[in-house]
């Protein structure tokens, strides 16, 4: 293990020094920020004012949502249940752009449906969701003031507002939250591809400059392979950390400069919040105030950043290990660099399949194929991100651990098999790689 570590450190050092590492750390976050900007500034139909009807048969919201009027959204409340078709076609509802359906389970399952006529812009969707969430939080706090802080935090899970087209409510694709997961899944694939190719190149370079035999005299082939995957993996994580840092800074700067009036949360909520939280300590109040002030925080909450990021890291790490092992084995068995390029095509095809699976899951969240995709290790890193963003159905949250476990176990199996390929292939030079040879090498101990 110690030797693997020495190999890993050397690899890491080389990566950190390379120009592409630095370039990627700058270009990547810029790209992410650009996409975010476009989503907010240009995304969706840009209707400037919305009328929203909140159907609330149990009067949970007590016909209140905000302390002050918001110039861009007006709310009306109906205390009975309205059929979707009725809302879609009845002339008396035509003045409403959307209907927000609140039922008695909202405080438990934290899911509400928003039926819209025209797809809202990202700004509008964020705004409605945010205001709705704040109001529900107040209600929860009012209801459970006797609870401890940790319980309060537990309650303070974000609300999932599922967006549906009112004319086609079954079309789950209209739910935008899944796109965030798809985006995260895409980032995982991007990292796997870029750093997988780095593994491949690094190994075939070691083969072609013939240092590999010197290394093998002190290191077992498996240790060498593991060290490479580890070193490049750490570089990937550092890269990722830089992305978070730069994107975080960028979002903050965007809040301050580009969208100062997007959603001035401080005006809306602080009054209500302070009343609701009379019983809380000063520290907690400060914490809350800070939380509700920041645009960045808003985005974080909108996409459940803490949650997503945790799983994202897990799936990125293990997904990288899974795919990276294939790249490593390929690098080891190829006779020349052009060989490696040929055989990398099936791998890239698999990555595209994963991307497709993510898109499929986005459009068909409940389809059987989607569940399959979420278990198959080749596609699960993306599909699980999409499912996570869409929200696992109540009581099925454990399924993400099932997917993760399958991915982890497959990675171990692949690592074992690749170790054999690596061992038998790494000292073969100048041959033309064929499938027959691959099977021969994998079957030999």
């Amino acid at each position, binding site marked *: 293990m110690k030797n693997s570590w*020495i190999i890993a450190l050397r690899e890491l050092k080389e990566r950190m*020094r390379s120009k592409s590492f630095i370039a990627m750390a700058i270009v990547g976050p810029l790209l992410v920020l650009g996409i975010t900007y476009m989503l907010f500034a240009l995304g969706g139909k840009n209707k400037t004012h919305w009328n929203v009807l909140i159907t609330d048969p149990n009067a949970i919201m007590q016909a209140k949502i905000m302390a002050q009027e918001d110039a861009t959204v007006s709310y009306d409340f109906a205390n009975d249940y309205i059929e979707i078709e009725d809302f879609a076609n009845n002339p008396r509802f035509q003045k409403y752009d959307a209907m927000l359906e609140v039922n008695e389970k909202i405080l438990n399952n934290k899911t509400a449906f928003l039926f819209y006529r025209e797809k809202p812009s990202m700004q509008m969707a964020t705004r409605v969701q945010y205001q709705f969430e704040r109001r529900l939080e107040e209600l929860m706090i009012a209801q459970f003031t006797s609870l401890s802080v940790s319980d309060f935090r537990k309650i303070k899970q974000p609300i999932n507002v599922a967006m549906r087209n009112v004319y086609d409510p079954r079309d789950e694709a209209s739910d935008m939250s899944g796109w965030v997961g798809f985006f995260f899944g895409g980032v995982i694939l991007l990292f796997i591809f870029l750093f997988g190719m780095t593994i491949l190149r690094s190994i075939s370079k070691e083969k072609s400059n013939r*240092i590999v*035999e*010197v290394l*093998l*005299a002190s290191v077992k082939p498996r240790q060498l392979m593991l060290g490479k995957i580890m070193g490049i993996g750490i570089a990937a994580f550092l890269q990722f950390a830089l992305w978070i840092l730069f994107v975080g800074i960028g979002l903050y700067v965007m809040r301050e400069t580009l969208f100062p009036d997007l959603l001035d949360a401080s005006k809306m909520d602080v009054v209500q919040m302070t009343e609701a939280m009379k019983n809380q300590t000063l520290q907690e109040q400060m914490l809350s105030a800070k939380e509700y002030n920041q645009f960045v925080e808003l985005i974080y909450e909108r996409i459940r950043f803490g949650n997503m990021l945790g799983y994202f890291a897990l799936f990125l790490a293990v997904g990288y290990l899974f795919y990276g092992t294939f790249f490593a084995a390929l690098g080891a068995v190829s006779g020349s660099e052009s060989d490696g390029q040929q055989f990398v095509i099936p791998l890239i095809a698999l990555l595209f399949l994963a991307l497709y699976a993510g898109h499929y899951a986005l459009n068909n969240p409940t389809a059987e194929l989607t569940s399959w995709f979420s278990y198959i290790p080749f596609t699960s890193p993306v599909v699980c991100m999409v499912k996570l963003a869409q929200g696992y159905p109540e009581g099925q949250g454990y399924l993400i651990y099932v997917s993760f476990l399958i991915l982890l176990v497959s990675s171990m199996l692949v690592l074992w098999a690749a170790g054999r390929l690596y061992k038998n292939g790494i000292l073969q030079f100048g041959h033309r790689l064929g499938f027959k040879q691959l099977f021969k090498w994998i079957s030999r101990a």
Partner: protein
Amino acid sequence: MLKLEAISKSFYQKLALDEVSLNLEEGEIFGLLGPNGAGKTTLIRIINRIVEQDKGVVRFKNELMNNKHLAQIGYLPEERGLYRTMTVYDHALFLGRLRGMSKNDVNTNFNYWVDKFEIGDWRKKRIEELSKGMAQKVQFICTVLHQPQLLILDEPFSGFDPINVELIQQELKEMKAQGKTIMLSSHNMKSVEEICDRVALIHQSKKILEGRVSQIRESRKDGNFAVRFSGSMIAFVNALWTGFELVDKEILGDNRFVAYVKMRGENNFQDLLQVLLGQIQIEAAWEVLPSIQEVFIQEINHSNQTQDEK
């Protein structure tokens, strides 16, 4: 020091080594000879535990060879390279650490070799900035940096210029004097003859010859003598008459030659000198032993012949 007992290895039904046994004594330089594809590199890889033998045992200092012994071995493979963008010192540190050295030890030993080869300026240079010969020196340093007890060199002289060959040979002799054991495989027969104490010849996966260099040459001698003289070549040949046969000659200058002569019948060296005396001016005369290269070719051809007959 190193004992190989009946090592066999095959790759997909093709036999690479067939019950090869060797025994290396401490403090000797051992040459592993054989044509391309004979199995030398496989044997060397087995000793370094890069490849596992199918049958047979390797012992290092009377213990079964295991991974912890690898730290006492220095290995310079035939196919050797370095990371092009890494500096000379970083290489030493990296490879030294892999061999279990501390950073301090690496520094001390690296400085010693850098001073010895007078390459202090290269320390911070990247490999891609060095010439081929310079890179080879770095490779050699990295191989011996951890002060191995056993040094295994696969074709150490290939690609070296004569100056560097001489330099490496000197180093090897010095290490031998320090009691280190060295095994080298080479096609450079002259170097082998010069520095090896003993050699083994491997051909078609089998060991077909092993022994002390001097003894092998002595045992293969076929009564050839050389005479350096001044005078007439015609007179020389006439003097030989039917008792001796002129095999070869070198012209050294005006009327100066070296003649290679084979005895015929009962004639010996004494007789040769007697017939020559008075005919030419003898400057020197000596017995000619076959070179290792000649023995090598002889043995291989002989082995091929017997193979054909079968």
